[in-house]
């Protein structure tokens, strides 16, 4: 299969990479750009571990062709902090013990990040619905929901 050169805009930086048509965006991010914060778990679009933001919306990078990523703005977990300063949502996950093995965390945080942009004062059920595509096999979700709620509340106060 012939490789093609594409321009991938990730976390505000532009990268020129060569990809095959059957490379997924996930493979391009992890293997070409070494942004290994984005995780691969189920590989078939059921678990949400590979979630990235594409033009601001959460999508599954394991089901997206790298070629389809060209010309879009992609945000991965590496793009959320500013230097050493973490995103408030990342801080909330740490404070509330919402991270155990950590494998679902990047996808979970990116999904929650976009959700909080849409929801001003989210209720419990709204949060649950929002993260229903992100599986966590450690925490039982309670701490994760608390962290997202806390991040929303903190923003209200600010």
């Amino acid at each position, binding site marked *: 299969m012939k490789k093609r050169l594409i321009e991938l805009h990730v976390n505000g930086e532009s990268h020129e990479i060569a990809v095959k048509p059957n490379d997924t965006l996930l493979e391009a991010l992890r293997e070409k750009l070494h942004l290994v914060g984005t995780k691969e778990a189920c*590989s*078939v679009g059921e678990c949400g571990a590979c979630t990235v933001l594409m033009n601001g919306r959460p999508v*599954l990078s394991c*089901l997206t062709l790298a070629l389809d990523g060209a010309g879009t703005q992609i945000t991965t977990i590496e793009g959320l902090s500013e230097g050493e300063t973490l995103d408030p949502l990342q801080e909330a996950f740490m404070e509330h013990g919402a991270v155990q093995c950590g494998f679902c965390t990047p996808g979970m945080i990116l999904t929650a990040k976009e959700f909080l942009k849409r929801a001003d004062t989210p209720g419990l059920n709204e949060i649950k619905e929002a993260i*229903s595509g992100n599986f966590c096999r450690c925490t039982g979700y309670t701490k994760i929901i608390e962290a997202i709620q806390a991040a929303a509340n903190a923003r209200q106060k600010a």
Partner: protein
Amino acid sequence: MNNMRLPKFSYHEPRTTDELVDMKGAFMEGGAILAGGTDIIPMLKRRNRALEHLINIKGIPEFKKVAYDDNRGLSIGPAVTLRDIIDHPIVSESYPLLAKAAEAVGFNQLRNMATLVGNLCLDSKCPYFNQSALWWKSRPECFKGGGDRCYMVKGGKGCFALSAADTVSALIALEAELVIRSVRGKRRTLVEDFFTGDGRRPHDLEKDEVVAAVLIPLSDEGSWCQGFMKKSTRGSVDFAIASLSVRLKMNHKGVEDARIALNGVSTKPIRAKGAEGCMIGKEVNDDTVSQAIHLVLEETTPLSSVGSSVFYRKNMIRVMFNDLIETITRGEQSHMKR
């Protein structure tokens, strides 16, 4: 061994509908369409399906359009995502049933990627067929994989994979049509007639044909109330045990016209015409509803699947129908995922 990589294929990006139609006509069943990718990519990764050509249709400008016309209604292109449908002001105002059904599909990330036409063209789903290549290595192939047996219905003489898409019942209740293109020309078919009931080839789509648009007509004058309900094993992400769409046109005497459609219970969706007929001309009361439920169940042949026996499915349809009629005749649109 990493068998979760995509297999090799030759990749195509047509820029016009004519170019696409020519490609599909040349590749036939060896060519598959890529839009949202949420159905075809997992099937390719699991090696459920072999292909030589993948045709990405997202580069065709008119395929991304939702067009509304006061005379003809709504036209939706095959690259329009479920998210676009949910957020579209005309859909939420004039076709709330469709917005609710689109919202019931999968989860947020999937709805941001998956398309409405892709949901209609969703391959039939089976807890056996949709296993990995590794799983299949240890068993004889089923009908859908080219073999001679069905694991869903033991001793079954055909493939009983389920028709699972959530938006189908809504589109049937809205009397939507499909525009289908091929090198041989253009035809239109009602969504209601688009399903074959054969799990191996669930859609009435020839090897050289592609769906070019969904058309949803305007509903006639009068006050239609409408609702959608989905029930699945888990509260969150799952294919339906049943999904139900109901539209009722009400006047001062009761029901003037009705559309009732179901999906997810069998190998094809069902439009419950008997139940529709039984409700027309009657007041909505317990008697009418229980007669209608009786007819809905007579018109459906629910299959047993992982997590839902025939008995459970039938009872859930009964409960869902009761709840949905009650909710919509109270003047609310309903959307319940649990």
